[in-house]
């Protein structure tokens, strides 16, 4: 476990526990939880509420042969699959989304030395990996919706402090921030957005269609 300074807010974790989040955000929370036992404990606490809600439900009738049908579905017990523990940069859920670790990412340049790789995009949100060169800044931007940034490698600094591996920043509308990668190594982040970002200033505005955020 890394020493995580910036944690996910409760409503986000509850949304993950209830299954209400857009897919792009599910990926970021699952990856954050893989890196933070605190976040995992909070998600599992919210899941315990789900268990209590389930236990409290009035029973409905099941089919007469329901148990027999279920036992037929079970079939012969197969070998127990060993859980996969990632030893690379990317925890398992992100590894699955990428199809491998850091070296498997198909980066595309989006300008100013910044590279990205879109992992998922639908009408509810987009998840992407960003790679910011050490010491360089992301284009300054504000956004219409929620933006979640999880650091996987290196670190960045903005108005809210320094964010390193496992740290999660959640910014909502009206926040205007300029993340700058800390010197030393490139900063790799997993970012989910639920609305197109608005960039400030002429040059970054030109870059926006390429970034797609």
């Amino acid at each position, binding site marked *: 476990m890394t020493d995580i300074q910036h944690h996910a807010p409760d409503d986000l974790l509850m949304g993950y526990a209830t299954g209400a989040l857009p897919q792009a955000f599910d990926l970021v929370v699952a990856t954050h939880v893989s890196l933070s036992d605190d976040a995992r404990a909070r998600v599992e606490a*919210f899941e315990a509420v789900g268990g209590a809600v389930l*236990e409290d439900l009035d029973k409905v009738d099941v089919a007469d042969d*329901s148990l027999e049908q279920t036992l037929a579905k079970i079939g012969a017990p197969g070998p127990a699959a060993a859980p996969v523990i990632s030893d690379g940069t990317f925890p398992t859920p992100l590894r699955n989304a990428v199809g491998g670790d850091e070296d498997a990412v198909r980066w595309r340049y989006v300008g100013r030395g910044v590279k990205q790789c879109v992992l998922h995009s639908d009408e509810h949100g987009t998840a992407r990996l960003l790679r910011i060169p050490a010491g360089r800044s992301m284009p300054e931007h504000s956004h219409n919706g929620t933006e979640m940034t999880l650091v996987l490698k290196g670190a960045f600094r903005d108005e809210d402090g320094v964010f390193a591996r496992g740290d999660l920043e959640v910014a909502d509308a009206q926040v205007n921030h300029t993340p700058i990668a800390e010197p030393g190594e490139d900063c790799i982040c997993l970012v989910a957005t639920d609305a197109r970002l608005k960039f400030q200033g002429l040059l970054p505005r030109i870059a926006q269609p390429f970034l797609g955020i």
Partner: protein
Amino acid sequence: MEAIAQDQDRKAFAELFRHFAPRVKAFLMKSGADESLAEECMQDVMATLWRKAHMYDPSRASVATWIFTIARNRKIDLLRRYARPEPEDLPWGPEQAPDQADVIALQQDTGRLAQALAKLPEKQRELIQHAYFGDLSHSEIAAATGLPLGTIKSRIRLALERLRHSMS
């Protein structure tokens, strides 16, 4: 659960089935599945419980909680059509096992959580149930009930704080 995991005990499974299958089906119907889809999906959930019994950790979740997570994931699979990304597993090694004192403590916490939920004012309890049945975001819940977003959010937060407080 232990009998299912270690001995593939079908009698123990039948007992769990009788308790949980009607509730899992009710949960799926409350979540928007029709009767026949809920029946089929419930059977999948219970079959998954059998297959993954060795993964169950009684020091971190009650059986009901664990079944809820399986049902939730299957529901997302079926109704939203995607495989939800799950956190990396934290398995017990072959020589380790959950501490019995931890297991008992968790059972007590789970009991207190259920009591606290039952003692909540009706409105707060309904809000929480809605959040777990639906794939409704907080703003969609607000739209559904005509309540302002801020109020509903703090209601849920307050309900959960009370739950936490009564558990401590």
